[in-house]
């Protein structure tokens, strides 16, 4: 039983990180109906910017965070302005593929900057472990998990209680209607992309805190996509729930099934879960089932 508990907790911690990645994607999808593959790179570049200011320029952590977030917002703005806006009204798959092209473009630069090495800001952020019920839990992951919960709460408040949040939700439902009620849909798109790259940067920093900045970091984007789908592409609570679920499932299944099938269950668990969820609940766990009145 203790073993199960340990797997559960580790899974929850890992899942919190997945959820954060997914939230950034859900934000974009909700409003613009574009599924973005580029978010993995936004994480990578966000973490890289944070690392650059913190470790290379040796600035205080707050400055680094603020600068990294500004950088992320600028990237988000640019992507929306130059890649997404010209595609408004065009097939959605063209937009999807453009985000993929953006991913490739940024991937080349990312690798160019890293040159095969890894970058870490280990010395600045909490390391070590806290003993909970006799089991050592990683503080890096705890800190990242806490940050993702905070971020999530912040987003919920933002959408529920602010005017821009309301505008974003309205835009998400019906672009034309939103426009005819006086919402500037184009600037909402711009804000959404900026918000989502900022969230992706948070996720990138949290991830890099756990496993350093390495070429694999942007590929976490695929995990995020799966989590977003399991939770429902347009549901923020769904992203959180699915992230946690996936994290737990991966660790528990690896814990119990690996010895039976000879290893490697962790990498396939996510996809099996996704298939099952899509077959049982096609719009994801908490995704909006389109309200259709007859």
């Amino acid at each position, binding site marked *: 039983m203790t073993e199960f508990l340990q797997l559960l907790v580790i899974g929850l911690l890992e899942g919190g990180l997945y959820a954060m990645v997914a939230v950034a994607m859900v934000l974009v999808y909700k409003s613009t109906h574009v599924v973005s593959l580029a978010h993995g790179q936004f994480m990578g570049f966000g973490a890289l910017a944070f690392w650059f200011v913190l470790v290379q320029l040796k600035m205080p952590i707050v400055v680094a965070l603020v600068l990294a977030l500004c950088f992320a917002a600028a990237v988000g703005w640019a992507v929306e302005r130059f890649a997404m806006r010209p595609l408004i009204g065009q097939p959605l798959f063209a937009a999807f593929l453009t985000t993929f092209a953006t991913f490739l473009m940024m991937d080349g630069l990312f690798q160019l900057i890293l040159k095969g090495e890894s970058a870490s800001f280990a010395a600045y952020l909490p390391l070590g472990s806290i003993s909970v019920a006799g089991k050592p839990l990683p503080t890096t992951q705890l800190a990242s998990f806490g940050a993702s919960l905070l971020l999530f709460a912040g987003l919920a408040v933002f959408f529920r209680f602010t005017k821009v949040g309301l505008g974003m939700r*309205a835009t998400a439902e019906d672009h034309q209607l939103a426009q005819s009620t*006086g919402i500037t849909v184009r600037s909402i798109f711009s804000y959404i992309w900026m918000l989502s790259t900022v969230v992706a940067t948070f996720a990138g920093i949290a991830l890099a805190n756990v496993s350093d900045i390495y070429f694999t970091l942007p590929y976490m984007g695929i995990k995020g996509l799966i989590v977003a789908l399991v939770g429902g592409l347009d549901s923020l609570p769904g992203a959180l729930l699915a992230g946690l679920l996936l994290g737990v499932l991966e660790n528990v299944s690896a814990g119990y099934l690996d010895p039976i099938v000879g290893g490697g269950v962790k990498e396939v668990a996510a996809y099996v879960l996704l298939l099952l969820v899509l077959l049982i609940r096609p719009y994801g766990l908490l995704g909006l089932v389109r309200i259709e009145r007859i």
Partner: protein
Amino acid sequence: MLQINNAEVIYSDVILVLKGVSAQVPDGRIVALLGANGAGKTTTLKAISGVLRTELGEVTDGSVELDGKPIHRMDPEEIVRLGIVQVMEGRRLFEHLTVEENLLVGAYMRKDAAGIGQDLAKTYGYFPRLSDLRRRTSGYLSGGERQMLVMGRSLMARPRIMLLDEPSMGLSPLLVKEIFRVVRAINDEENVAILLVEQNARIALSISEHGYVMENGRIVLDGPSERLRENEDIKEFYLGLSDKGRRKSYREVKHYKRRKRWLA
């Protein structure tokens, strides 16, 4: 005063929908726009509110002017800011938002928090039913409630001119009466000019002061509502009465229409 001068609208560069439409909506008045399906009424409204451009349509000739300033090249959100609000056909709501959130979206471009609060109370005053439903997800409302909500939402923008597209469609006679009572009240109390597009000519002409009749992308007839109500053709086609005052069969109407008395 809103003025449409000889506006011509083309969709996707090829389909000519409005072939030179002129009309005007004086401040604080109710103006009715009548016509059969596909006559171009909704397109006229879209040309005014600017929504046209999101549907690959374009005003290619003529102009739409508000107080003498052309507005047909503006984005829809700018036009809303000028005080022209369209209540779109089909009662489109933000279905996953609650009733109150829908109303607040209507006031999105306003900056005065206190005024928004007052207007919210006022809207609930016009539509007491909405006040009971304020926390309800709007997608589950009934047709009449939806109509109230879309009108309430546009009221929240504190408009000068409201473009009302087929408010009576598919509603029971009692509800229609109620809706038009509120339309009247809005016009009287808020001094909002209303451009009303309707199939139900009887009611439209009874509350409006001026009427336009459209056919095939053109205005074919206009005049004060009382005069239109007395017009033989209006009676014939829109009120469904023949010159002898009895109901006519559809076949006769078509036959009669082939003479194209109105074609300009």
